[in-house]
């Protein structure tokens, strides 16, 4: 009896096991199919999967419980279209105390004045006050960011993380640590031991702007790139943030505050695009040698670059007078009448150019002397006079 049991029991076990394995495999297959179906569903329905048509709760925009067409009860949320510019950094509060959610740490005294002044070196107020570019009303962070981490709609960061993300993305790079105590917070119960630094009334020293910058690159056909920083600001009136919008403090402050393991200089690898984009935004050119030269470039010269030398009157003008205020600049042709709408035959007072036409020439068409109405070239006398040439013989006199 005992023997039979001994022989049968392992066999039974094996059989049972084989069946169980088969069974469980089938079951997984079934599960797989369901999961597959679920996944397909997500793709097919499109909308659900499209992050841009992401569902947001009604309460994100409507403050009232029952919004109607007449009274939608919309939260004030000035989007890009309504923007009318920020107040100056000097008009905001100097210090803001943030202590809405302190748990392990006490609240933070945020030096708003100093930070807003510093933000002018980068993106400006919008860097923190996103979606809130308005002079009318500055929204509180908590108007959109929920104080409650456990919430229905999690696609908008909660308030605690909204604050931390704004601060830490810079501060971590700058100080190379995550110490809550060392930067902003004071641990509860230790308030007496640590005195938080007071930044009231402090400002960042003024930055000296470079005149020109020269890079040595490894581009074979032209190693030297010259960039005239002063021209871009004074002449072309480029906004700082169009190039420096992504700059963080570490761009200059790249030395760790304390000697830590992170004492190596910061290495930021920029991709090809990142390197070239600031220039390519305006200088839409496929020709690398436009910037990459064998030697240093000379400052911008209207005559050299465009073939149109700016003389007396035109050299006094700001670029945007002719080329418009937008970057990249509007190209214009050489027809005087393109800008000077009143420069028409019969109406144009030639003496404005500093040259008074003689009586015989006064009533002639412009193109009789200025071939093809090209006023950049010298007038051509040969059309009418075999024996006259410009400028040895003049059809009038200089003023």
């Amino acid at each position, binding site marked *: 009896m005992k023997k039979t049991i001994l022989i049968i029991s392992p066999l039974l*076990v*094996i059989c049972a096991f084989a069946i169980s394995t088969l069974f469980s495999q089938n079951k997984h297959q079934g599960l797989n199919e369901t999961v597959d179906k679920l996944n397909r569903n997500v793709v097919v329905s499109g909308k659900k999967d499209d992050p841009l048509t992401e569902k947001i709760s009604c309460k994100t925009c409507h403050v009232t419980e029952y919004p109607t067409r007449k009274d939608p009860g919309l939260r004030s949320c000035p989007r890009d279209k309504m923007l009318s510019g920020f107040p100056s950094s000097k008009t905001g509060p100097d210090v803001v105390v943030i202590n809405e959610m302190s748990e392990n740490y006490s609240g933070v005294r945020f030096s708003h004045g100093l930070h807003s002044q510093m933000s002018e070196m980068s993106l400006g107020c919008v860097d923190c006050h996103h979606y809130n570019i308005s002079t009318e009303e500055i929204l509180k962070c908590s108007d959109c960011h929920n104080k409650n981490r456990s919430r229905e709609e999690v696609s908008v960061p909660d308030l605690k993380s909204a604050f931390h993300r704004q601060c830490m993305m810079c501060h971590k790079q700058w100080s190379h640590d995550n110490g809550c105590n060392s930067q902003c917070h004071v641990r509860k119960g230790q308030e007496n031991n640590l005195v938080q630094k007071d930044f009231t009334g402090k400002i960042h020293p003024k930055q000296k702007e470079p005149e020109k910058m020269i890079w040595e690159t490894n581009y074979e056909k032209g190693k030297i790139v010259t960039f005239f920083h002063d021209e871009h600001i004074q002449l072309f009136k480029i906004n700082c943030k169009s190039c420096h919008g992504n700059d963080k403090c570490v761009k200059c402050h790249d030395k760790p505050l304390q000697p830590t*393991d992170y004492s190596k200089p910061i290495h930021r690898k920029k991709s090809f695009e990142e390197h070239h984009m600031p220039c390519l935004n305006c200088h839409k050119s496929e020709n690398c040698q436009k910037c990459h030269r064998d030697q240093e470039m000379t400052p911008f010269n209207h005559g050299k670059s465009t073939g149109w030398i700016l003389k007396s009157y035109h050299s006094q003008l700001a670029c945007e007078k002719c080329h418009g205020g937008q970057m990249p600049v509007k190209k214009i042709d050489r027809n005087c009448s393109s800008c000077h709408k009143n420069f028409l035959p019969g109406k144009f007072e030639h003496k404005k150019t500093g040259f008074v036409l003689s009586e015989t020439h006064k009533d002639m068409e412009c193109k009789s002397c200025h071939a093809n109405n090209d006023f950049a070239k010298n007038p051509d006398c040969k059309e009418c006079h075999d024996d006259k040439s410009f400028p040895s013989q003049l059809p009038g006199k200089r003023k």
Partner: protein
Amino acid sequence: MKNQNRRDFLKTAAGIGASIGIAGSVKPAKASEKTLSDDRFGILVDTDVCVGCRHCEWACRVAHNIPTPDLDTYSDNSVFKEYRRTDASSLTVVNEFENEKNSAMPVHVKTQCMHCEHPACVSACIVGAFSKLEDGSVVWDGDKCIGCRYCMVACPFQIPTYDYDRSIDPQIRKCDLCFEKRKTEKLPACVNICPNEALLFGKRDDIVRIAKSRIKRKYDVYIDHIYGEKEIGGTSWMYIAGKDFEKLKLPKLNYSPAPGISESIQHGIFAYFVPPVTLYALLGTIMWITRKKKGDDSEIKDETNQDKKGGAL
């Protein structure tokens, strides 16, 4: 108490063995696979947002009654010098990886049990000590565990750890998603403390959608892949990152559920006609030797013998 439970368990196991003999059908003792709820949770680890403060490690220890130094000591960056794994006293760990794009912003990756959608540990566990709950969490029942450590072998992320320090009643330990705590407080301890909400807790469907939208919005930051969305049939914890996941030590895995792995081990045994009993007899002997140290010979012998049957199911 423990022994009492054990006997109860063995009785069930033997009972099941017998019923198989009669009915010829199988009702494995392992965790019943409940249908996963549509509202089951998911957690997104956004490595671009994580700053590596390790507060989650601290909160995890506090929540699981594991002794821990003061929170302030966690700001010490020197721990990042070596790659760390989860162990019996650290159910979650944060590791640091180089960021080639900006060395001042290293990438931090929190690891813990992934709470797989089709957990290999659950399939591997021969006594049903592991179970996958409807809400998505994978939990472990110490009373059922026989300490065979199959789960440790089966887990593709090498997560379950064995508490070797406790000679009496050793425990398998892994993240349980604060299963007990969540009955009263809604969030797991790590999610609750994270200053940056780098750990986003919500319905799995929502989490996947949000992850996709983040990738789309910051296409220059993230790789277009959600780690864990499909890996081994999907996991509850999912990751988005700007760096190759393998370089962040998240293993490259198939999209098909992992239980296949543990099952194929067992299939292999069949293929070469090695009766599983031999294997369990071997395991049993090992257990018997370890148990013998505690000096309860007669009972253990009896139990190991029955383990053979119960175990093979």
